[in-house]
């Protein structure tokens, strides 16, 4: 591929010295079937034939990923690819068959019931595709529910819940019952509930998939707005690539329980690790994903005109270059000249390599 000229500098989006990951899993397996433990006896790992022969389903198949604090990791894949199972293993809603899950360095899988409950009461929140609100409680009581469970007093918890309801833009609906709200509003309640305990790690399992496209868009903006304020560590599941592109810091592509590739959208598009990822990314609008940095060359004296930032997407310069500019200077955040981008490279991104 022509665009492979520059190495992508770092796998992690932010920070120079990698901070300890907020959430990490290593060699994680979840196998459904009669007695999956036998497959893993004495530290062994099953191969595809062994799984098939026993009628097992490896919903999560040897997955290792890290999520940095404050990062949005999107898990992408077709229905049945194991996304939900993965996120449930990460939150230990189900017990994994093998592997390791760490939350801020603590092993989640060896934690006892009591510590786990404490962890969920303070560190984790989850949003569900079908909302899973309590039908017999009002919006306010739904949001206050996790606080009630951890024993917070009535007045304080309602105060906090009210703040959360305001945060997600539902003020005035506190006394409504879930049944009386639209889908988008119900999911706002779900979001407020998951945020009420001020979790550090936030899991969202296809939170917007049940909503109409227009509402979905609105909720994505809402989500980004919240994340700019809150800086949570997020694992977000979707089967919609558009959604992944809009929200992701990094994306995991899953297929048959395997993590086919982990990386920034741009990496997936420019350097697909497998044929499957390539097929998956073929139809995406590349100009909106690929940054100028990844196609720029060394600074060139011939470059003229208004400079573009290295972090801008190709779409930002596309029009100028199609209309005739040959080379455009590239600058970094500080405005210093770091390179130049030539017309041919931009056309390669837009229309594929010649």
């Amino acid at each position, binding site marked *: 591929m022509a665009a492979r000229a520059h190495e992508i500098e770092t796998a992690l989006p932010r920070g120079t010295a990698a901070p300890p990951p907020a959430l990490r899993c290593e060699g994680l397996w979840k196998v459904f079937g009669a007695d999956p433990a036998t497959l893993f006896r004495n530290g062994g790992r099953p191969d595809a034939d062994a799984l098939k022969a026993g009628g097992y389903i490896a919903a999560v198949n040897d997955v290792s990923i890290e999520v940095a604090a404050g990062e949005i990791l999107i898990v992408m894949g077709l229905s049945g690819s194991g996304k939900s199972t993965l996120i449930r293993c990460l939150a230990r809603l189900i017990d994994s068959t093998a592997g390791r899950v760490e939350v801020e360095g603590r092993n989640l899988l060896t934690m006892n019931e009591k510590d786990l*409950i404490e962890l969920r009461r303070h560190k*984790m929140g989850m949003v569900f595709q079908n909302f899973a609100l*309590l039908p017999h409680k*009002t919006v306010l009581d739904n949001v206050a*529910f*996790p606080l009630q469970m*951890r024993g917070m007093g009535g007045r304080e918890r309602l105060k906090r819940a009210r703040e959360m309801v305001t945060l997600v833009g539902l003020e005035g609906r506190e006394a409504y*019952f879930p049944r009386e709200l639209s889908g988008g509003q119900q999911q706002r309640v779900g979001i407020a509930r998951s945020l009420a305990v001020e979790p550090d790690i936030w899991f969202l399992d296809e939170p917007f998939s049940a909503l109409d496209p227009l509402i979905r868009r609105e909720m994505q903006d809402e989500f980004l707005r919240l994340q700019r304020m809150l800086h949570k560590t997020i694992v977000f599941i979707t089967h919609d690539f558009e959604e992944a592109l809009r929200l992701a810091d990094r994306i995991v592509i899953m297929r048959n329980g395997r993590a086919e590739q982990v990386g920034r959208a741009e990496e997936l598009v420019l350097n697909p690790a497998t044929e499957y990822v390539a097929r998956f990314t073929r139809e995406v609008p590349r100009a909106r994903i690929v940054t100028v940095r990844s196609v720029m060359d060394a600074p060139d004296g011939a470059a003229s005109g208004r400079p573009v930032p290295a972090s801008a997407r190709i779409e930002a310069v596309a029009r100028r270059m199609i209309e005739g500019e040959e080379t455009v200077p590239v600058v970094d955040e500080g405005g210093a000249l770091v390179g130049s981008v030539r017309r041919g490279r931009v056309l390669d991104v837009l229309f594929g390599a010649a």
Partner: protein
Amino acid sequence: MATATAPAAAPALVLSRPRLIVLAALLLALALLLLRPMLPDGLVRWPAALTPDFAAWINGVFYFVQEDLGLTVVTRAVATLVEWLLDVVRNLLTGERGGFNVEPVPWLTVAALVTALGAYLGGLRLAVLGGGTFLYLALFGQWKDAMLTLSLVLVAAPAAVLLGLLLGVAAYKRAWFESLLIPLLNLFQSLPHFAYLIPVVVFFGIGQHAGAIATVMFAAPPMARMTLLGLKGLAPSVHEAALMSGCTPRQSLRHVEVPTARDALMVGVNQVIMQCLAMVVIASFIGASGLGYKLLLRLQSLKIGQAFELGVSIVLLAIVLDRFSRAYAAKKPVHADRVTFRTRWGWPLIMAGVLLLTWGLAALWPVLWEMPRHLDLGFVRLPLTLAPPIDALVDWITTDLFNALQAFRGWLLLTVLIPMREAYLALPWTAVLVLLAGLAFAAGGVRSALLVAGFVLFLALSGWWDRAMITAYMVSFADLVVIAVGLPLGLWLGQSARRAGAGLAVCDTLQTFPSFVYLIPVIMLFQVNDVSAIAAVMVYAIIPVVRYTIEGVRAVPSTLEEAALMSGANGLQRLWNVQLPLALPHIMVGINQTVMFSLFMVIIAAFIGTQDLGQEMMRALSDNDVGKGLVLGLCVAVMGLTVDEIASSWSARRRRELGIV
């Protein structure tokens, strides 16, 4: 042809594997029947010498538990508690001494509160229904008996709900308990009412409290089942949301799972209430007083007019309890934009106002407190009565229609019933076993066949084979007629949405009536004999066939009907090639229920004179013979479970084949 799925489109008769099996079983059974004279006696009837004495074993166990384990201490404590609760409620509702030993609540107040409750639950319609019913009870002199019956329901229903809830939750939490409970529930729900009465009499004696305890035991199983179904039916994310909210398992159950399953639980509560009423009426056999007891007396002495009045009271109470509990189930919380004094306190205040006002009125006029036995208001005499015209009608039937009815009865007995009965009695048990096991194998494979064979073997071994065959003949005759009438009726009703709605509404209402009251009209027509028993079974058992046929036809996807229309099928072709094949699995569930209903009814009908298992059960009841009673009950249950096994496996397989879920 209309659609690819219509099996009727197949040319001629295709001998598929299941059909071959059925055919083989049929031929073998026939051979056994024809070779009967040559068969060794043991293959025709199980030798009496080898019949295990189940009854004595059961009696031994009961005796051991009761005397040696000292269970009497427990049962006596339970009896005392139940008796005290009943006393309190009865004291409040009827003024009978006991309990708190206070004056009863004025009848006017009870009636007015029921009316207000109806208004709260379902607006004007339920207010009129509730008020009208209780007014009827007061004006027709049924107040006291009705309140006795109601007090039994008021004590038994909450206890049954609680017990069922506990069992259901335990099964939800512990898989081993679930695998234990499910078969027990299947068994309990196929035991006829009487089977519950006998052990209760042994452990608790007879009387009001025994009636209440039998009722709780009878009504708790459906609640346990609905609880388990409701909890297991919750979306997995409900449970996960609870976990992620930091719930402990107990918090999750109490704050999340049980409230979220409310709809299913309320279906269970409604069933419990209706089962309670049905059982309370039947519990009059073991000394529960009230409407059922009076009805029993009137029917025994053939006072049909008074029996009819009592029947109306029971039916009205049933409808009120059913509609009220359903309205409560359907009531969903609605937010109030502003919490005002009125939204918060409106209904409690109205109730309090009604209470005070009516109490005051009753204090002024004692007639409004306690309805006197007789009251002459000048323009009308209380209590009102329907008995004379009904009795006149019955007289007219027995005199003027006597010949016609008698001729019909004689004809039916001679040409149909007696030959059929003889045929059933002639069947060697081996032939029945081969035939039924073959059917079960074709429908559900080896497991079903073994199960059914075990059931039939139990019947053969029980020592009650002939009685069981008489029960079987009555049920199968009644059900053949019922299907022949109910199926076309259901198909016809199912053709239009409006007719279907009306049909289902009628079925709904009829199904709430306690089975016992179906005896009244039948006795009016045929007096007391086996034809009336069969007629009662028919009237009661036709409801599920009709209802499930309507539902089945309505559930056929409209695209398929349109496809048939576009293929040029006329109405009858469409019915035959599309609707019937697709609806049949669901209809089969209805037929299954019809058989269950029939078995229950035929046992109840025992008391108007049959010679089957039910008659023996009545005898066991009067002898306090718990072993015999339970063996007979198990015989009935086993017959029901046989039909259930065959019908539901067939239905499930057919659904899979048709791709209906």
